[in-house]
């Protein structure tokens, strides 16, 4: 077994050269075509191996070269064979089978990569391993990587991202139209839960990341979001939809705090970035549009995972404040009502009963609700989330 020398570039370091040929004397000769690299005229040569050397002899060629200095072709089923000699000369044989037998007699065997390529079994095993590795990387590898990167990122980086994100959000936001008293009530309800939760976390030895709450009027409807850097935004419409119920609003904000605590924003940036890079490498040169499909699916999947984590965090914070996670069921009931009846349920004193709302409201409202529902495909199904909060309350 001989290591490849550095001047001999190989497709892997796994080339095996048996030196058994040393002792057995010269091999049989093969008639090949030799090009000297300076002219396109072929020379017919006799070629054979002897003592680790490749010998070439023709009418005007007399050449001897160490086999390890030769860049040998890999065995393929089709195509002529061409070996590159040092100094730019090439040796070519049109009869692939004769060439392969001849090279083998010279003591050269295939690398395992070539053997795998030549057998359908090796190919099927490779295919299965690719599927397994990609699946594992997608389910565990990438989320793990994203968490590690997000946790190690300096705060200055996150703050820079936060500034950009906040700047972009502010375009869709106006100052709140709620009365100062209503805003203060939301703020107070949240501070109560936050303080109880911070104290409980401190007792468990966990630091709660700093956050701040903004109440804004916006065309995006009833919604709450967490931005990188710990800014949480709740819209006027959400406060109205929940009929100023401070405890449920605090539960929603605890969910958003879960996003802040787990740095979901930064994790998503890393995950989508890596996923986009990989899909563009694999499928990008066929079609840019098709390459974005796995990206969208992956993004929705990771986003659902993040929502589950945030729900769990919300249940934890509510229990810390001696509230039952079951109060969150109200949120989903009110959302269902909103989807059915549109903006009419946001009016003060609106009925909590679907039978009371006018299904033939304005078309625009129904449309808005359906678009809103579409956006929530990145969240787990409502039924699943309701069941989760009920279970959390029972524990």
């Amino acid at each position, binding site marked *: 077994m001989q290591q490849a020398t550095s001047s001999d570039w190989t497709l892997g370091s796994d080339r095996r050269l048996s030196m058994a040929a040393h002792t057995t004397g010269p091999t049989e000769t093969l008639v090949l075509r030799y090009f000297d690299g*300076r002219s396109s*005229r072929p020379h017919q040569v006799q070629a054979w191996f002897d003592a680790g050397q490749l010998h070439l002899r023709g009418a005007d060629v007399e050449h001897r070269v160490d086999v390890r200095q030769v860049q040998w072709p*890999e065995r393929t089923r089709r*195509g002529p064979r061409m070996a590159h000699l040092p100094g730019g000369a090439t040796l070519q044989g049109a009869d692939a089978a004769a060439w392969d037998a001849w090279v083998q007699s010279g003591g050269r065997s295939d690398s395992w990569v070539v053997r795998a390529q030549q057998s*359908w079994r090796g190919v099927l095993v*490779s295919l299965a391993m690719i599927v397994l590795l990609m699946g594992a990387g997608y389910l565990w590898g990438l989320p793990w990587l994203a968490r590690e990167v997000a946790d190690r990122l300096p705060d200055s980086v996150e703050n*820079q991202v936060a500034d950009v994100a906040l700047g972009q959000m502010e375009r869709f936001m106006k100052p709140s139209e709620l009365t100062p008293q209503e805003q203060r009530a939301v703020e107070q309800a949240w501070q109560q839960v936050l303080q109880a939760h911070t104290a409980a976390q401190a007792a468990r030895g966990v630091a709660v990341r700093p956050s701040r709450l903004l109440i804004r009027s916006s065309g995006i409807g009833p919604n709450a979001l967490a931005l990188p850097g710990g800014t949480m935004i709740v819209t006027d419409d959400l406060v109205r939809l929940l009929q100023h119920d401070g405890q449920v609003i605090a539960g929603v904000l605890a969910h958003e705090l879960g996003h802040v605590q787990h740095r979901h924003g930064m994790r998503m940036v890393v995950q989508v*970035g890596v996923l986009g890079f990989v899909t563009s490498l694999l499928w990008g040169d*066929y079609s840019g549009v098709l390459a974005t499909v796995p990206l969208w699916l992956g993004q929705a999947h990771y986003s659902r995972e993040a929502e589950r984590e945030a729900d769990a965090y919300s249940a934890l914070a509510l229990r810390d404040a001696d509230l039952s996670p079951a109060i969150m069921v109200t949120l989903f009931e009110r959302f269902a009502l909103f989807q059915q009846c549109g903006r009419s349920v946001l009016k003060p004193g609106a009925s909590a009963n679907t039978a009371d709302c006018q299904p033939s409201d304005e078309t625009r409202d129904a449309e808005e609700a359906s678009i809103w529902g579409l956006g929530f495909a990145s969240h787990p199904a409502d039924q699943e989330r309701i069941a989760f909060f009920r279970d959390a309350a029972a524990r």
Partner: protein
Amino acid sequence: MEHVESGTETLEEVSVHRLDINFTGSGSEYFRIWIVNLLLIVVTLGLYWPWAKVRRLRYFWGNTLVDGDPLGFHGDPKQMFKGWVLVGLLFIAYNWASNFSAVAGVVAFVALGALWPALWRSSMRFRMANTSWRGLRLRFAGSVRDAYLAHLPPFIVVLPMVILSIWIPDDPEADFPRWVGMGYLALLALGVALLPWLLWRLKVYQQRHYALGPLQTDFRASLKAFYLMAMKPIGLMVVLMGALGLTIWGMFQSAGERPVAIAQLFSVLPFVIIGLWLLFFLGIRPWFTARVQNLVWTKTGNSRMRFISQLRFRDMLWLSIKNGLLIMLTLGLYWPFAKVALARLRLEAVHIRSITDMQALVAAAHQQPQEAAGDAAGDFFGLDVGL
């Protein structure tokens, strides 16, 4: 070939040789090569890429027979690895810069744009310098200066855009001067109008600088031919967009109520988008590929030899439909078969006519330095030498 150079030989004595190009690669064999290499790329988190690429190129080159003799690929994967890392770092730096600050993103984009022609040129030099036929290495003889000059059209459009941006107010709420908006629109239209010119300049630069031994190619296609070629797809798009606009207008007229018309529009829009996408991938793209290849290669040659490309649109269309369907049905596993079939169709449509004895060529005296960075850049951004 317009003239036969007078010299010792006269027209009667000249015998014209026809050199056919054959492709002997097989889809099932390339599939096996592709799968095993894909696994190695996944396991090494991408580090194996250059080795896989060399194996792929050697397979395709080795199965491309010009007048019965294969092409050889001599690229060194270790060297290409360096280029791959360099381009990867550039790409990551660009992504990070644009993620965190718009200004840094613009700076990185401008830097990348300024580097691009040089990378593009060194990519072609690397490809050619590492390709051999009958023992002779090919060369790419284009200069850096000409590579930048070939990329002139986008600069003509982008530079005024940058200058115009001075008049954009800092406050996003403030009113945009009307003439600035009109200026941008005019520049965008100019950019589209200059596309055939850009393609022509790039092809002139490429096709005039390929060389084998003493033979260097020349390129005789006119700018007019490129504009005539671009007319059909652009005209088709204009007609389609016009028809689409008229239909939408008609819907709004007949529906009476706006919300109803909008709902109707949203119900047909996905089909329109899919239809346009199919038309582009299965119709316009194969048509354009066939036309560009025929125009570019049939006009490439010199006084001793010339290429002739007779790629038929019908064949390209049929192959695109078949490849596209099978790739989707097999979730991408048909991809290597498609690639081999496409290479066979495109390569075998070309032949060479020559009055030079192709067995008597002698290598040019000088050697080429090898620049792997450019080769990796060409691959990374999907840019490649056509044939």
